[in-house]
């Protein structure tokens, strides 16, 4: 089983890497032909497009295999270490990238997700992969799985919003045939944040409920808890600014980028600040 998991992990990296390379080829070809069609659907690049989508789907399938194999070996969701969570997070981001392509036919957003997911897989590859023994506090299978699954969805949605915001800022300063109109990117980033905000709220609520059962306190100002609350506050501020003040465009794009930096602080913060999540 270990060999199977290792092989699936490597294949996931290879196919995701292939999808990233093909995406780069696609955009280079697009740029050379001045991108006359709507973004992502130019007929001249169709074979490249289909190949990269197949590679991305194959990569996602192999990540799914790794996760399922891990569940069989450990008997619980693959959420008990940074290695496992990084793989789960990359799974969510690839899924988000494919969903964005299917929904909006904007390849740039999908490709952005593939790059992020590949980076996460490479990061996971640097960490010990041996399944670790589950500490007593983690032996709450339902809450562990629900809490971390919600985090995977939330982070993937915020990553999609981040990508849209970055592309928005690029698009308003230069004409790019491979990107849609700025208003469309602005709307996509808003919709992504709405989904992410709901799920990060669910993460915090489930985490508080679980902490109350396991540790006797629903909130202990643990660094990861606090960082997730700060992330939540930033995105809450974004939603207020957009809905109450009518903020659009550059201001909201910057807020989304700041919010995603907070997501990264939440994700990696336990390496620096310790705390209850430092396992």
């Amino acid at each position, binding site marked *: 089983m270990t060999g199977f998991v290792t092989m699936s992990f490597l294949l996931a990296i290879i196919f995701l890497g292939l999808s990233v390379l093909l995406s780069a080829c696609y955009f280079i070809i697009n740029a050379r032909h001045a991108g006359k069609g709507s973004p992502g659907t130019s007929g001249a690049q169709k074979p490249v497009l289909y190949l990269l989508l197949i590679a991305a789907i194959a990569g996602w399938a192999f990540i799914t295999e790794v996760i399922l194999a891990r569940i069989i070996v450990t008997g619980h969701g693959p959420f008990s270490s940074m290695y496992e969570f990084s793989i789960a997070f990359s799974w969510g981001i690839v899924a988000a990238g494919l969903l964005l392509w299917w929904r909006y036919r904007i390849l740039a957003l999908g490709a952005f997700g593939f790059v992020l997911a590949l980076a996460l897989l490479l990061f996971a590859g640097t960490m010990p992969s041996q399944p670790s*023994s*589950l*500490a*007593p*506090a983690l*032996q*709450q299978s339902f809450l562990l799985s629900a809490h971390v699954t919600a985090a995977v969805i939330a982070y993937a949605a915020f990553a999609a919003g981040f990508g849209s915001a970055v592309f928005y800022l690029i698009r308003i300063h230069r004409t790019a045939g491979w990107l849609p109109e700025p*208003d469309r990117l602005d*709307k996509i980033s*808003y919709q992504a944040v*709405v989904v992410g*905000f*709901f799920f990060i*709220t*669910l993460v915090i*609520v489930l985490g*508080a*409920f679980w902490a*109350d*059962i*396991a*540790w*006797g*306190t*629903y*909130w*202990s*100002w643990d*660094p990861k808890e*606090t*960082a997730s*609350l*700060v992330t939540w*506050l*930033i995105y*809450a*501020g974004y939603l*207020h600014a*957009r*809905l*109450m*003040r*009518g903020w*659009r465009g550059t201001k909201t794009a910057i807020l989304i980028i700041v919010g995603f930096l907070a997501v990264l602080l939440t994700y990696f*913060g336990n390496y620096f*600040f310790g705390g209850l999540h430092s396992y």
Partner: protein
Amino acid sequence: MEIKHRKFPRALSFFSKLGLRVWRLFSSLQLAVILVLALSAFGLASILVIQAPSGIAAGSREYALWIENVARMRFGDLTGFMAFLRLFDVTHSPLFIFTGILLAVNIIICSVNRWKARMGALSGGQVRRPFKFYQAGIYFIHLSIIILIAGFLAGNYFGFRNPSFIVSEGMTREVGYGTNLSLRLESFEDEYWADGTPRDYRSRVVIYEGGSEVKRGLIRVNEPLACRDVRFYQSSFGPAASIEVRGDGSRQLYSGSVALPMQMKDGPSPYPMGIINIPDAGLIIYVVGSELDNPGRGNSRIDLGISRDNAGSIKWISLGRGEYRDFEGLKLGFTGTGQYSGFQVSRDPGINLIWTGSCLFLLGLGMAFFFRDRRLSAVLRREGDGRYTILIKPAASKDPGADSELQEITGALHRQQEDS
């Protein structure tokens, strides 16, 4: 929702004007943003600056000791200033609590303004609008934040939390905090994975109220025990040593299991340590597990440090398992080893408010963002040449998603016009 600034009518008194100014201030979205940013800054400070351990109240002797022995080692001359700003106990600082209260007031007043505006819009003979998920969701969200703040404050000020309630096997200890409860640890069991990390640890306990047994059960991580409104959580465990102390005429001064939860550094590895306090005899005895093996084995050894009447000096003797020794009028014995169980004991009157607020918040989010209603205003205008123009726009000027629906409607109207 903001109230636009208006001039005050001259007839208003000073206090009425003051009240209106305060109301306008708390109607401000900018104030909400400032308060949220302030709370975020407090949160970041609690991450970046080392915080005093939970259970140590600011102003207590333990807090002062922690400041001197831990914080000052890291921050040196800045320690005093940082302690004055309560940076080492941010989440219990009055400023943090006050900011939270201000935010709650801000949310209440904004919600009242919003409600008044909606009720005002229904006047003048308009048709009463049916229930809309979006609007109800917005109110649920803001109401839930107020409930959460109330729950947090109620728990902090009317509840208690003892994160280090330590009891040795076979011993009984009072919970305190006016609960009239005490807990007896009947037995403790621990299991380990193959790599030596803890797999499970559980405590069999009996709870007494006023000396009478009221509950008996098993406590383990993720499975707390509740008695009345007090909850007991399995928190930690460690070694304990059974000690006997006799005074003049073999009068028993102490007999029981002593938990060794502290650590004494003397050499490469720290030793587990506990304290026996016998105030009637003016004795403080430090128990150090210098050679503690698994319970039941014969080669354990402890060091006892005896201090009399706060003399300042501590005299040490060493005892093997089963050994008794006479020392300056005392007879000290080390009868065996065992384990202690560490519990977190808490009472939180605000906990139900927290869960209610959390569920209401999620419900409100779902209603507001996934069942969003949208109102459009339409005006039919007759032009000079006899033709009619239909003007359609979103009822809310800041509706970010109305464009696509407007395009659908205008497209449908054009098609209808062409068909006719």
